[in-house]
């Protein structure tokens, strides 16, 4: 316990680090592959670039069981409420990676049909550029998210 000799908050810091470490080591994604980026997301999960070494090979179909949503692909006006609904169904703590140019900013389709950037619908933690981003780019994004979580606080 915090006493005269230990600095205040030391127990809590170690607990925080432990919880963050556990959160990053088995982050399960919700299935939200929309378009071409979904193919590269599946390629990242496949054997050649293996997401299983980070504990992430499982993509849960039900958003209740997932804590990471990788929005992979272009989000149309019709899909935006669905996106929001799936995001709302995920339980805390949850993170969002916006994968690809179309999800981040609308990409090359600056027109009536797409939401220009998925951050207009859900809060985004990491943006991964590319059209589509290769598996290495996506993995860099995921690992950056892990670093961000490790440095952060438990209660978001």
């Amino acid at each position, binding site marked *: 316990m915090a006493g005269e000799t230990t600095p205040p908050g030391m127990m809590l810091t170690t607990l925080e680090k432990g919880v963050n470490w556990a959160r990053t080591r088995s982050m399960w994604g919700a299935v939200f592959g929309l378009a071409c980026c979904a193919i590269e997301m599946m390629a990242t999960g496949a054997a050649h670039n293996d997401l299983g070494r980070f504990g992430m090979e499982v993509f849960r179909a039900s958003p209740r069981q997932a804590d990471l949503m990788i929005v992979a692909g272009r989000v149309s*006006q*019709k899909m935006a409420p669905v996106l929001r609904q799936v995001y709302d169904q995920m339980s805390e703590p949850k993170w969002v990676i916006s994968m690809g140019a179309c999800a981040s*900013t*609308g990409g090359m389709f*600056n*027109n*009536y*049909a797409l939401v*220009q950037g998925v951050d207009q619908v859900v809060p985004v933690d990491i943006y991964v550029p590319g059209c589509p981003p290769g598996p290495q780019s996506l993995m860099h994004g995921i690992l950056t998210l892990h670093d961000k979580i490790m440095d952060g606080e438990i209660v978001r």
Partner: protein
Amino acid sequence: MTDEAPALETADGGVGKVRPGSPPPADPVLSTLHAAAPASRFERFEPGNGPAQDVVIVDRAGYHDLVSAAHSERFDTFADLCGVDYLGRKPRFEVVLNVVSHPMRRRLRIRVGIPGDDPTVATVSDVYPGANFFEREAYDLFGIVFEGHPDLTRILMPDDWEGHPLRKDYAVGSVPVQFKGAPHAS
């Protein structure tokens, strides 16, 4: 009001040889089609580097008969149906139907002009059931109403969308892109 078959804007002396206006002689298939819709015109586009393409241009009144005749003439495979907006031309819209005949190894393209103030035309989903979704898309994106279609609702846009996006007087809808730190919005 007579519905004229649309004037065709083509290159003259350009690369494709296009002969407007009459059924090519000695082609029994196209002659049968002409008999089914006497107000139709035929064209043949012969690019230098591809197969020749037969086009039939018909008015709204003879459209359905022509399509039924094509189906009987063994053009039994449906390929494509789309709408085109020629804003500034009368008639404004066009519906283009592509069909294929496997036994004759031929394609046929049927174009029907549709005026902009009364954008209705008969459906061909009773002849080619595959035209169902394609006609819904033409309705959704152009506002062309297909009479007799079993389920004419929006298919690509959300159900409460207003307007028909692929019309030429509907803006692309681009938003101005601003880069952070830029002194002026681009």
